[in-house]
């Protein structure tokens, strides 16, 4: 207790010494990464927080195992709409069954990540805002948004994401595609953009919760809307296609990755995906910071 404060940013930054040092901002305007080693500390925060949530899930045996069973059922159920549709048609909007298999795989990756990481944290953080429990998250010397986005975790939902990876590989094998390295990199880029866009939408919903405290329904709405992402973007026409490409970019999340692997995604679409994701992320960050300034910290 009597020792000096362990302000060990330099220690934490040890692993990043080879990187070029960025000049420290003269004034820190609000919440955000600060100083050397911040990235390392945040990554460790994510790891420890996820570990804690797994430990908390293990405290309740029945809940833990039932979560596992439900996840398996959910993974299988995710493929049913595809199977049913293909029983009646040879292809859907130009997508062959194996190409659709890849798309459904990407959809399951996205919904698995959403169910495991995004949705539980969204619920927990919204509840924290409503009850004032967010106070303790804001008192941590880390980016409050990162704290909120790892507030909770449903490990079993990752089963769906893993099943999605399997389905994506099955689809690739079935299609007989042998993607080149640029195609693989493009696929990883657009899938990453899709995840970034998903998080950005979640942050926008979370930011709204500061003003309108009871907004858990928005998280349900996001989950329901993700169902649109199980169909190729070419199914949609006109305004719906624009909506699902640029505003709620399901196309980037699920259609673009298999298109990249199949060699059907041109460079302009990939750049468009990147721009859309970056713009959404920037908008989400700005909205979050503005919302945080209006936090009223319910109750004493």
């Amino acid at each position: 207790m009597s020792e000096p404060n362990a302000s060990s940013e330099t220690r934490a930054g040890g692993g990043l010494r080879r990187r070029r040092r960025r000049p420290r901002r003269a004034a820190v305007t609000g919440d955000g990464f600060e100083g050397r080693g911040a990235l390392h500390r945040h990554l460790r925060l994510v790891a420890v927080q996820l570990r804690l949530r797994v430990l908390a899930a293990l405290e309740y045996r029945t809940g833990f195992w039932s979560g596992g069973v439900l996840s398996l059922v959910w993974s299988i159920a995710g493929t049913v709409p595809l199977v049913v549709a293909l029983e009646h048609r040879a292809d859907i909007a130009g997508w062959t069954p194996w190409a659709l298999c890849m798309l459904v795989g990407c959809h399951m990756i996205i919904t698995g990540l959403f169910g495991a990481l995004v949705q539980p944290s969204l619920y927990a953080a919204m509840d924290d805002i409503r009850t004032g429990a967010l106070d303790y998250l804001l008192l941590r010397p880390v980016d409050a948004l990162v704290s909120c986005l790892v507030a909770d975790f449903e490990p079993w939902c990752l089963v769906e994401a893993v099943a999605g990876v399997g389905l994506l590989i099955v689809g690739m094998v079935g299609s007989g595609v042998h993607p080149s390295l640029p195609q693989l990199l493009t696929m990883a880029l657009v899938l990453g953009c899709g995840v970034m866009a998903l998080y950005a939408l979640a942050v926008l919903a979370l930011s709204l919760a500061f003003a309108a405290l009871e907004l858990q329904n928005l998280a349900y709405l996001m989950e329901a809307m993700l169902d649109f992402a199980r169909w190729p973007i070419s199914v949609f026409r006109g305004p719906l296609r624009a909506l699902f490409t640029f505003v709620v970019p399901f196309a980037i999340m699920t259609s673009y990755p298999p298109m990249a692997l199949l060699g059907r995604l041109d460079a302009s679409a990939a750049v468009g995906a990147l721009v859309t994701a970056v713009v959404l992320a920037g908008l989400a960050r700005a909205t979050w910071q503005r919302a945080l300034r209006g936090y009223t910290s319910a109750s004493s």
Partner: protein
Amino acid sequence: MGEVPAIRLDRLGKRFRVSQREPGLRAALRALFVRTHVEIDAVCELSFEVPQGQRVGLLGPNGAGKTTTLKMLAGLLHPTSGRAQVLGHEPARRSHELLRSIALVMGQKRQLSWDLPALDTYELNRVVFDVERSVHQLRLTELVELLELGEVVRKPVRTLSLGERMKCELVAALLHGPRVLFLDEPTIGMDVAMQLALRDFVREHNRRTGATVVLTSHYMEDVAALCERILVIDGGRLRFDGSIEALVRRTRPLRRVSVRADALPTDDELRALGQVVEREPPRMALDVAPERVPEAVARLLALPGSHDLAVADAPLEEVMRELFAMRAPEDEAGAEPSSRGSDA
């Protein structure tokens, strides 16, 4: 150049905009479409300075603005006017350097994970606050020993009593070695023994580490026992700044002299000495001006069968009640309407 004060407030203010409606279904339905808002000044032009290492108590009735002030000092709320500085930093900017130097413990909220042992949350805090493992372990051992927690930190938090949980919360708040400690009603709901243990701990922590302590509590004994200086806030404004003794002298300058005797004099016989405030034979008590205390003591000691004579300040609870009942001069002058806000 002198030492940077732990806390410096300069005309700090916080205004909340809150919705209001009448009770009942009709009003609730109307409020769905048209909502009335009022602006409430929870804190008004608050100015004071706290040097490092001092123990300060914030006193005030419910809704006085104590918690709002603490939350602004901790960077949770943004002030609407004025300026706050904690260890030279502006709290609203939430710089990581400041957040590493402060801690806030709230008696009615918890940071410990409900389903896990407190040790797991401590490990999370170690990572978040970037405390070296050996330093963390040293502090943990010392705190667990001081608070007599033993194996309690290994049990799931949901199984702990309120007192045990609050002790564990204190450990969580202190593991990173904060230089300023904000305590908001830390003893609320606790039994007397646990309150005493927490008070002893906070005093000892302050002595050992030199950390500044700012405390709010509804229990006057907490503040009287812990704080060398008190700040009384009412209606968001500072009403008093000084020692408890000075507050008592200012608000209730009369001393209370009590005695037991076989025969008690009448009120009229004592009128020249002071005012009788209690008479339950064989005991009586009267409030006496300080300069007349020797005379009153001599008179009461001379009573037949006189014993148990005591001279004391008025009870703190009574002093506070009287202080809050007095209207602030600016309120009386009507310079600003009374605008007491909620603590949240």
